[in-house]
């Protein structure tokens, strides 16, 4: 399944994974858009460390690499989007709470 996005996706993933290109099935990436790159980029700030995040991300994508059912792919991509939103919320809350704790009086 050739897709103009596939090149973009691979480039983005490659950019962020220390030069090592992981072999991937075309079907998942065709619909995957820029998720791998986006998720990997978000993983830099993960509390347990970027390396831990990268491992888990790779595992999650590899587990589903042979998926061909368009419906299932749509669901997986939706889950990817959801994870992105969760991570952004996590990062914001952590930072907000740290700032609040350091700079403001505790509210009684």
């Amino acid at each position: 399944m050739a897709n103009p996005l596939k090149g973009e996706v691979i480039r983005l993933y490659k950019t962020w994974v220390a030069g090592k290109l992981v072999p991937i099935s075309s079907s998942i990436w065709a619909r995957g858009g820029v998720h791998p790159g986006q998720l990997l980029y978000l993983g830099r700030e993960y509390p347990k460390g970027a390396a831990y995040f990268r491992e888990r991300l790779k595992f999650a994508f590899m587990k589903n690499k042979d998926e061909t059912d368009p419906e299932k792919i749509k669901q997986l991509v939706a889950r990817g989007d959801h994870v992105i939103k969760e991570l952004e919320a996590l990062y914001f809350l952590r930072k907000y709470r740290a700032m609040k704790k350091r700079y403001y009086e505790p509210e009684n």
Partner: protein
Amino acid sequence: MRVIDYAVKIRVKPDNSGVVTDGVKHSMNPFCEIAVEEAVKLKEKKLVKEVVAVSCGPQQSQETIRTALAMGADRGIHVEVSGKDYESLGPLQVSKIMAALAKKEEAQLIILGKQAIDDDCNQTGQMTAALLDWPQGTFASEVSLDGDNVKVVREIDGGLETIRINTPAVLTADLRLNTPRYATLPNIMKAKKKKIANVKPADLGVDLTSRLEVLRVDEPPQRLAGMKVETVEDLVAKLKDAGRV
């Protein structure tokens, strides 16, 4: 501005001359993120025409400007300060730079974070306003721009204060002003097309000489080890010993 990331555990250099910065993760000062967000929001509401992100520092400051561009700023200005000048760069020098740039760019509003989480000075906004003889709305938790004036709700001890000041003005952002958007990868990619101008402080006629000298940096005192007690009576006895009850 670029500071050591808030989540990093700070280490003091063995010679107590400062903190370790080499190889340490840096990011945009959290209060500056809020300032950038507010500026971008004003542009989205079509209340301002253009948002210019400014950072003073070494080459790496460009990363911080890129983040601001990814959040929605239109262009950036990187004021190059490195080496010894950067080590002694403080609110006085930065505010002189900001004042010079504000005049050059004919800015209507300067929005800064209320303080940097590294030096905790909380002075740059105030000094900039003083140098420009502009009104200031500091510790802003709410900003409403209305033609040639701006209503600012300020966080103060014991509550909130609402003031109205004319533009051009300087505002400093407090924690509750807004929720900064995350600079996503696609936006960072798009932001690469936006321009960052390079400027030297000398070009702006700014003298970076510091009037301060850091004598020593020390870690906070270690918390004393806690003591374990077996019974309530023990606890009361120990508290009495320590003069606490």
